[in-house]
């Protein structure tokens, strides 16, 4: 019997959350250790995914299928070389996040950790779902714990921020829901079977006109999540108000869902629409890179600075995603992991500072390095990783992204490379104002350097940063097959469609019914459908 590893990883945190309900809320230490144990076990189990992952195939692995509601709504999960690392990133960061909120969260510890565990299940669920309906359920379910994490444990304007965050995301995802159902009905009409299976959808070729609308709905949901310019304004608010752990998880993992959504759904399902909107999307990405960098430059709050830096970095990732060649997409995935580590770590640093001074304003700091040399060293490494210094993780992802973009469009790459300058400018300037210079704020004299717990959760991140910077092979090789498959899939579909369009001379407005599965239904079937339609 096969052990359902993926289901265990997905639902173990949820099970932990349920058990947590039965522990008395005053036994805070027990609750914390219990949660830590749950996420650690989840992480350890998830490592088996990496080791038994077959890098040779692009097919989904660890697949589990089961009937659920019916009408195509099935429990269907699995991972490929793209989602593998996003799952690992999540499980890797979770223990770190729990450790980081050990003393930071004092009120309602139990509820806080319950939400954290539910969140983990939601996130992993999003990455492993192969059934569009299931995907949507996780996608939305994940919002709930996030809503509470910001809304209950957040800062002064937490209510505003959390509602803004949820409404923004809901707005996008509702349109996506509509699109999912349209897709569902198209598929049913074309084939006569109910399915939310993503692989079934991959096989059909949609009329470009229909693709446009569906793509827009999907793209909007994902673009908000990324967030791409101009849908980014929820991000600084959410980051600033969220507790440290919330910011970390938001930046490190939740943003990646948008990019992942494009890679998994929007791009392979609607390649022609992508083609059509590509110029707009590329320009938005480019604006995001430069705009995010410029905005980061002048932020007064460390957290919103890092938030805008995310807008800039995610802009580069999306630019690479849309460049759609092997270098760019592998770079984009690599950069997602990288950005998850470095930006997550930067938020952890802000959290460390906040816990000591209870302010996030840059001007309240200065000269902290002198008081906290060990922290300063970590902060420096994280910052350099974010800047993309060679030898650390950021460089590998960034250079592959820009190179991939360069292959597609030289001018975009040349404009996008400004991120290299901007990121150095805003981060170094922030570092200078916060960590260097003379100590002017009396409070800083009382700062204690990192304690053991803080060092424990910083060290694994540093190790990963060096590993990913010096020896990226173990990561890149596992992605190869899936990424190449994805690109071929898109290219082939585009080619097939143009061929079909030429042969059959399909007019620009086509009835939905005409769209069938071109790979299985041959030309005859298409003709038959036409006849039926005439009748």
């Amino acid at each position, binding site marked *: 019997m096969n052990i359902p590893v993926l289901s265990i990883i997905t639902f173990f945190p949820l099970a932990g959350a349920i058990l947590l309900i039965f522990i008395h809320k005053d036994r805070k230490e027990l609750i914390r250790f219990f949660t830590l144990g749950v996420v650690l076990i989840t992480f350890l189990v998830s490592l088996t995914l990496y080791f038994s992952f077959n890098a040779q195939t692009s097919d989904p692995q660890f697949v589990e299928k089961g009937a659920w509601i019916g009408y195509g709504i099935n429990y269907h999960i699995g991972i490929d070389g793209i989602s593998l690392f996003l799952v690992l990133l999540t499980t890797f960061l979770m223990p770190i996040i729990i450790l980081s909120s050990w003393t930071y969260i004092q009120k309602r510890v139990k509820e806080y950790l319950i939400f954290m565990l539910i969140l983990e299940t939601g996130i992993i669920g999003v990455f492993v779902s192969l059934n569009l309906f299931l995907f949507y359920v996780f996608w939305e379910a994940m919002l709930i714990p996030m809503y509470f994490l910001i809304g209950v444990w957040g800062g002064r304007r937490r209510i505003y921020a959390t509602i*803004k965050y949820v409404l*923004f995301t809901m707005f996008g995802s509702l349109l996506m829901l509509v699109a999912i159902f349209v897709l569902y009905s198209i598929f049913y009409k074309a084939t006569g079977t109910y399915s939310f299976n993503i692989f079934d959808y991959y096989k059909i070729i949609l009329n470009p006109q229909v693709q446009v609308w569906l793509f827009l709905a999907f793209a909007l949901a994902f673009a908000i999540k990324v967030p791409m310019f101009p849908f980014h*304004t929820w991000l600084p608010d959410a980051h600033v108000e969220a507790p440290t752990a919330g910011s970390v998880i938001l930046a490190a993992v939740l943003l990646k869902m948008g990019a992942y959504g494009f890679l998994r759904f929007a791009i392979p399902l609607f390649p022609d629409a992508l083609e059509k909107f590509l110029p707009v999307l590329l320009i938005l990405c480019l604006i995001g890179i430069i*705009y995010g960098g*410029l905005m980061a430059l002048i932020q007064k709050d460390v957290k919103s600075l890092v938030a805008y830096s995310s807008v800039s970095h995610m802009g580069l990732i999306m630019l690479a995603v849309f460049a759609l060649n092997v270098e760019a997409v592998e770079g984009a995935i690599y950069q997602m992991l990288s950005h998850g580590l470095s930006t997550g770590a930067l938020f952890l640093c802000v959290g460390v500072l906040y816990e000591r001074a209870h302010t996030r304003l840059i001007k309240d700091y200065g000269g902290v390095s002198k008081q906290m040399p060990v922290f300063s060293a970590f902060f420096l490494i994280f910052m350099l990783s974010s800047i993309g210094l060679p030898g650390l993780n950021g460089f590998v992802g960034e250079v592959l992204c820009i190179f991939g973009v360069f292959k597609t469009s030289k001018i975009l790459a040349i404009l996008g490379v400004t991120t290299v*300058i901007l990121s*150095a400018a805003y981060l170094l300037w922030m570092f200078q104002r916060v960590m260097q210079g003379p100590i002017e704020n009396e409070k800083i004299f009382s700062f204690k350097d990192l304690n053991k717990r803080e060092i424990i959760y910083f060290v694994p991140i540093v190790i990963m940063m060096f590993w990913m910077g010096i020896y*990226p092979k173990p990561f890149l090789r596992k992605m190869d097959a899936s990424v190449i498959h994805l690109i071929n899939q898109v290219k082939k579909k585009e080619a097939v469609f143009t061929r079909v369009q030429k042969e059959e001379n399909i007019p620009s407005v086509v009835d939905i019914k005409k769209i069938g599965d071109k790979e299985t239904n041959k030309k005859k079937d298409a003709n038959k459908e036409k006849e039926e339609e005439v009748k």
Partner: protein
Amino acid sequence: MTDIFWLIPFIPAMSTLILAIFGQKLPKKYISFQACFAVFASFIISVISLVGLLQTSHESYPLVKNLFSWIHAGSFKADLSFQLDPLSAVMALVVTGVGFLIHVYSVGYMANDKSYSRYFTYLNLFTFAMLILVMSSNVVLMFVGWEGVGLCSYLLIGFWFEKHSAANAGKKAFIVNRIGDAAFIIGIFFILIYVGSGEFTAINSAISGGAITQGVATLIAVLLFVGATGKSAQIPLYVWLPDAMEGPTPVSALIHAATMVTAGVYMVSRMNLLYTLSVDAAQVVAVVGAVTAIYAATMALTQNDIKRVLAYSTISQIGYMFIGCGVGAYAAGMFHLYTHAFFKSLLFLAAGSVMHALSGELDMRKMGGLRKYLPLTYPTFLIGAIAISGIPFLSGFFSKDAILTHAFASGQYFVWALGILGAVLTAFYMFRLIFLTFHGKERMTPEVKKHIHEPPPAMTVPLVILAFFSIVAGFIGLPVVFGKNLNWFGHFLEPVIKKSHEAHLTLGTEWLLIIISVAVALIGILIAYIFYIKKPQIPHSLVARFPFIYKLLYNKYYVDEIYNATFVNPTIKGSELIYDKFDLKVIDGAVNGTASSASFFGKILSYFQTGLIKDYALIFLLGAILFIAYLLF
């Protein structure tokens, strides 16, 4: 024996790692030992490698050691792979040799610093990064070293980060360098696309095989050179180097004089086939070098800060190296890099020992007459000054002469003339510095004067060794006038560097050129002597007579201010404006507007929700009437 050369960068890396993790807990003595020993070990291996290299036939150059595949995705391939050939051997020797002396000097100089272990961690890290830069066998790995030395530069300039000025200078250096690096990386991408590989051997064979057109070569060469103007502090990206003097003086000697800043020259020499193919790019290199050489020299004329004079001098001397590269005399450029490493680090270290003696004083106006207090520092400083001025037969004379002769021979008379003019200025500002510091009236405060002392042996021994090399280093590259085959240095580099078009000058012309350049150097010294020893009132009257020029030079042509006004401030002000007016008002305004209009309409609708049955009945009635009306008409 030569296959151990990859250990050269590896040893300082290990040392860095140990110091970074355990440095806080280790005793100072051990830290000094380990840090110095690591560099020394690398030096020994470099020497062994050089010997091995000399015994290997030219055909097998370069020796390559591929450790593992580093980044590999699609057509992007970069390995962690090192190479040994004459060029990298020379660089490795300079970096580890001079680097070792400066490490030893630092033991004395930094003895009382609180952050002793941090200092040596950074210094070892720098050595590692610099060795990666010069020994990598592909351009992507070279970029790792390129950025790595930039990082160390940032860390060491801002070593005393409690000072605003130091923190600022470090940040400025990094960001300015990044501007160059952005261009550099685009250049790398072009190489990867057109050559299909970043390996230097592949690049060279692509160029010799004609796979690269002249247009592409120019594009790549210029992009890479923009990177070089950042790292090697040339116009227009030189602005960070003078500020970099905020760092500890040994750092200025190692990074901002002897090694890192010359990385651009190394890079251009490494890519010499590319610059030979692209005549335009070579011309750009030569002109930028020449203009920088003279421009920086003029700024050195009026500075009062002893280290800043040396900083401008470094910018100017690197300009000379680029002249060499630009006129096709790469070996001459490299030769100047090599001699400059000795005399300029000597000058910096000697300046450091002056500072050490004067409790950290940098202002030459508060020095004077130090000659008798510092009997060891003075002669070494003087040797450095003579060497840089180009007085026979010290090292600087041979290398500078080689560059200028080649410039003349290649028909670039304008470049040559700028070089000669620069030589006058060089001799002048160096001896101005000597006279102001070591001769004339003693202008120290009595308090400072009491403490003047020669530094400990850890500092003086490196000075003496460097002085020795500043004198003799040039003898391995004698010009043609002294005999046919005495340019051993150029000969050694020949396998890597395409033979520069041999100077087709008659011996008579060569002699004439040498005499001119020696004469101008002497003139420069003479003027300095008149200005600062004989008639010290002359400089003052000149300042009074030409206040505008003096102010312009003293304020470094206001370039910092111009850059701030044109790039830095508009970026920040513009971003603030966009943030306030666009991000918050327009985008977020639209978001909040949507939300508030929704609640506005919600409110209006809520008026209908009165809870009174008669109101609902009324609405129902109205609706029914409307509906019937619709049906009827």
